């Protein structure tokens, strides 16, 4: 009996070790599995909060309404009781869609006062700063007085408050004033742009004199206005908007492997772009065409090209481009399709972070 007792005790102690081991491991497991829920190492950029400019908002409609004014290009009404039709002078000065490959408007003031604008202002280097100072000395405070910048091929239109602008010395070039009707055109003495001031609110700058004269003529009603403006009134939304000719897209894309540029030039009639830069940047490219079937095929080809671009960006370890193309999509809609791109503010901030330094 005395021999069996220690043996039983030993067996019991051995069994107790299993329990001790179990408790110890439970505690160890509890310690190892502690903590919050797992999260992604880096917060992925998300298109969720990015506003994509797909239509005109109330504020933009109001902005457009406030810009409408009697422009002499519009024929006087036949009866006194008829309301005087109003037009946007900037749009009136721009050539028609058939005459331009590119017609784009930047809402400079809106961009300046946006969160992205603040970031961009931080990126102004010394050279740009001295140019701004010089322009200010000539009566043009670009940061405060500039409202819009419109580009139509070789014609650039600046709108804003330029009542005190001295165009003769702008940009470090000396210019001489030449009369053109009731206006004056400043011609560069050696090289530079031809400039004209309209109503103290628009500066017209052209690579050659004819472009500036044509713009003044459109404003004065000496040339019949285009059947429709380069940018439709209903398309003036976003902080950047405009129209590109399909041929320009073909030129820009060059000889792409899939021949997308060529197909766009063949099938598309019109391409509109809209960008919202209020907080994030949302870009929408709207492609219109006459043949719904061809447009549907084209939209798939563009979507495929973007998917392939994303794939090769991933293979080349271009993380930024891969993330951006992650957020891109093509939305087919009968005789048109839109290409949507989203650049969240966090993405832009990270790219402009060097400016703060």
């Amino acid at each position, binding site marked *: 009996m005395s021999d069996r007792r220690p043996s039983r005790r030993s067996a019991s102690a051995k069994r107790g070790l299993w329990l001790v081991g179990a408790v110890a491991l439970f505690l160890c497991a509890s310690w190892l*599995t502690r903590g919050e*829920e*797992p999260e992604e190492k880096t917060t992925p950029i998300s298109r969720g909060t990015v506003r994509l400019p797909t239509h005109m908002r109330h504020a933009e409609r109001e902005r457009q309404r406030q810009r409408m004014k009697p422009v002499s290009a519009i024929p006087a009404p036949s009866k006194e009781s008829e309301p005087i039709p109003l037009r946007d002078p900037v749009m009136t000065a721009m050539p028609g869609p058939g005459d331009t490959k590119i017609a784009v408007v930047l809402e400079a003031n809106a961009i300046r006062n946006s969160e992205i604008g603040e970031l961009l202002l931080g990126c102004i280097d010394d050279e740009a700063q001295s140019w701004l100072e010089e322009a200010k000395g000539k009566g043009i405070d670009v940061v405060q007085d500039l409202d819009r910048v419109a580009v139509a091929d070789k014609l650039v239109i600046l709108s804003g408050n330029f009542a005190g602008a001295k165009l003769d010395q702008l940009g470090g070039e000396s210019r001489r004033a030449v009369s053109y009707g009731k206006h004056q055109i400043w011609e560069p003495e050696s090289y530079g742009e031809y400039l004209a001031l309209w109503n103290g609110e628009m500066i017209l700058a052209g690579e050659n004199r004819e472009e500036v004269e044509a713009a003044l003529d459109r404003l004065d009603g000496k040339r019949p206005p285009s059947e429709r403006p380069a940018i439709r009134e209903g398309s003036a939304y976003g902080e950047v908007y405009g129209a590109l000719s399909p041929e320009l897209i073909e030129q820009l894309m060059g000889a792409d492997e899939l021949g997308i540029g060529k197909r766009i030039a063949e099938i598309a009639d019109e391409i509109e772009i809209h960008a919202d830069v209020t907080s994030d940047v949302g870009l929408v490219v709207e492609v219109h065409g006459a043949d719904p079937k061809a447009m549907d095929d084209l939209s798939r080809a563009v979507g495929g*090209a973007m998917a392939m671009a994303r794939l090769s960006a991933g293979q080349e370890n271009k993380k930024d481009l891969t993330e951006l193309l992650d957020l891109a999509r093509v939305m087919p809609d009968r005789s048109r399709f839109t290409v949507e791109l989203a650049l969240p503010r966090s993405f832009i901030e990270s790219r402009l972070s060097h400016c703060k330094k």
Partner: protein
Amino acid sequence: VITAIHIAIDLLREAVSRKWFIAIFVGITLILGASALSLEMEVVDGALAATTLFGESLDTEGIRPAEVVLRPIFAAAAYVVFYGGLVFGVLACADFGPSLLAPGRIEHLLSLPVRRWSLLAGTFIGVMIVALVAALYGAGGFTLILAYKTGVTSSGLVRAALLATACFAAVYGAMLSAATFARSAALSAIVGLVVFVGGIFSGYRERIAPLFEAGLGRRAFQLVAPLFPPISAIADASALIARDALLDSGDLWRRVIGMGIFGVAALLLAVWRFERADY
């Protein structure tokens, strides 16, 4: 250890011979087959243009890179594989422990030159192998279907299945432990489901705790929830992995190892109980 492995192999033979178990594998095969036949995806140069499931069009948010569009699908599939696999494992394996300890059989096994702990360890290993094979079969099959349909190959679902198996170790450890206290397949399954549901709450305990009124209820929840393995935290991690998200791998490994250790701890508890029992 070799004895335990022999016992595990015996258990696998038994699993194969069980018609119900085979029926489950046939069921998984049918689900995979139905998915393969009903899921139509139109992929153009890597972009997903349209998807139909059982003839119904699914909104793909326009034409987007197939890999990007499929991320939520992979994440959802990871949840299905993870939670579905665990529930399947609990129900399918509930009877293994009690049948091992069934009167007649256990006496026969104990008469053999086999250590008691080897019997339980062998059963545990065998069940884990069954769970692993089933999880890999389901996850691998769905991965192959999506790869065939879209050209997108991702190891995310298979990795989710492996994580689910690690969690099942914790759940099955508790089930086997319960079987040593009462030889009941029903009790074993109930304990497994309690650990499963408790594990879901445990993983979200930081979020759930504020829902309780401050005081005794919240305090009790905060004390009890950490006792369960945080299964939902691993499920979330598996979904993130399936959608190609970057995770803190050190943190994930810590939790997965913790899950495994929970399972071993439960197994030790079962061994402690089994060593004391008289058959």
